[in-house]
């Protein structure tokens, strides 16, 4: 038997610029997942910088990350289940695009969280749809013809169905991965595994790249295997203003401030110029906010390891 980790792997590590240039194309169905936790803003900013357009963007909660993509005119369609600025209010760029077609008209396709989760589950399992006990008595199926029903062949019970979602590309942010993309996540992991397995291409963005031995020492923490990953990008602070458990806290002040910034179209455009178009990469973005690292850096709270021996 080969000793652990002896296989020679080709590193998939590239820059964000190269990953987006190679793997995100105009007209793609794009998913940047992460439920509050580990939302990869760095990837969204690179998509904006490279001026991708006509994207269909899917997420349970569009959050600020899709508000920014929409404001930059990258998206043609949004698929979602809860569209707001959590604890703050509305997503103003999203509302402008729906209500006034600014900067470009935006089509929407709406589910509930369970419906979106089920769509990713079907996509990951390569099934055409997913059955769920949901939507009876709700108006959601009346406004989304893709929410349908099926009769169970065993019990004759009627179940709701949603179609599989298979993105062209899914972008996941993780705390750490090896150079092959074997990624470990702790804290909330939402629907990241399903979204990655459902995708044709996967970009894995991480706070740290570690030796494979680090991953192999704690295999239960691995959420996504490297062999489904196309590119690995090391982008510390890449999830800001979202957070990375054990690395940095959520920038709640930023979420509050976004309400002001995004309310006015011109002000939002100048924000995009200053913090996205006019910076080369994530490191340059972080340099624009001195004191941010100190303010948000996570306090230590380590857990004890377990015995994997036999």
């Amino acid at each position, binding site marked *: 038997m080969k000793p652990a980790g002896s296989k020679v792997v080709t590193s998939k590590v590239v820059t964000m610029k190269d990953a987006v240039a190679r793997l995100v194309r105009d007209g793609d169905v794009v998913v940047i997942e992460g439920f509050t*936790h580990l939302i990869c803003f760095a990837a969204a900013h690179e998509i904006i910088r490279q001026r991708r357009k006509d994207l269909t963007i899917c997420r349970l909660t569009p959050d600020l990350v899709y508000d920014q993509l929409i404001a930059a005119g990258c998206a043609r369609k949004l698929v979602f289940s809860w569209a707001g600025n959590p604890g703050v209010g509305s997503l103003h760029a999203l509302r402008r695009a729906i*209500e006034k077609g600014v900067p470009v008209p935006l089509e929407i396709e709406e589910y509930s*969280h369970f419906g979106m989760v089920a769509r990713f589950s079907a996509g990951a399992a390569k099934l055409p749809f997913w059955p769920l*006990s*949901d939507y*009876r008595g709700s108006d959601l199926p009346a406004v989304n013809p893709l929410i349908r029903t099926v009769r169970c062949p065993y019990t004759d019970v009627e179940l709701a169905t949603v179609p599989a979602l298979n993105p062209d590309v899914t972008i996941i942010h993780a705390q750490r991965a090896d150079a092959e993309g074997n990624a470990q996540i702790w804290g909330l992991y939402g629907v990241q595994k399903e979204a990655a397995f459902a995708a044709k291409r996967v970009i894995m963005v991480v706070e740290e790249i570690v030796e494979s031995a680090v991953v192999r020492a704690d295999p239960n923490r691995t959420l996504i295997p490297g062999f489904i990953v196309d590119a690995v990008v090391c982008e510390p602070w890449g999830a800001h203003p979202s957070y990375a458990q054990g690395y940095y806290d959520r920038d709640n002040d930023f979420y509050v401030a976004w309400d002001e910034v995004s309310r006015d179209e011109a002000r939002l455009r100048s924000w995009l110029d200053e913090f996205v178009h006019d910076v080369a990469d994530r490191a340059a973005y972080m340099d624009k906010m001195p004191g941010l690292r100190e303010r948000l850096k996570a306090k230590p709270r380590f857990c004890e390891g377990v015995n994997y021996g036999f």
Partner: protein
Amino acid sequence: MAVRASKELHDGDVVFVGIGLPNLACNLARATHAPDLVLIYESGAVGAVPDRLPVSIGDPALVTDSLGVASMADIFQFYLQGGRIQVGFLGGAQVDRYGNINSTVIGPYDKPKVRLPGSGGACEIAIHAERVIVVAPLSARSFPAAVDFVTSPGHAGKYGTRKQLGLPGGGPQRIVTDVGVLEPSPDDGELELVGIYPSATVDEVRSKVGWPLRVRSDLEKYPPPTAEELRLLREVLDPTHLYI
């Protein structure tokens, strides 16, 4: 409202918690009569004991010291659809006479007067939780006879009654407002006034709903919050006055 909502929780209940007042109510219940409440957040935190008031439903403080973290597929399929949740908390822009809740849109769906965030997990919580507690300030605008859009089904509507639809959960059992508490009638599911705060009158409550409100003959009069409850809320649970 937070104090009243906290009293709707029983010790040991497994609760699907939302952010804001529901979260405060749950933590007040944990600090008073229900220390063994199990808090579950749709983000995946199970048995959360947040050390700070979470600003979002996916706050990192929900994970630290929790019993476990689940994927959202597990949360919705096994925990909620699997019938393991006793209490679900919901809010909404509109609640109607049968407890249908709208958190999607005011006005027509295609030409909205106000676009709201949408369902999130609300639709499936309303369908599956054993009982749903709704927390919403009472006003004629927010409590019309019929909602503009049914995001989360109540006790009856154009698609039928809960029984006809075969919904597994009990639906909205208590609607906790800023003037009193409504409950569905056991006969037809219409919301009726069952309790009132000392500062409110029945006429006031009636003027704030869009249908002829029935009042239970054994109308409860709730005592005002105790000094200790107010101290816990203001000094311990929400010291920076995020929600109160």
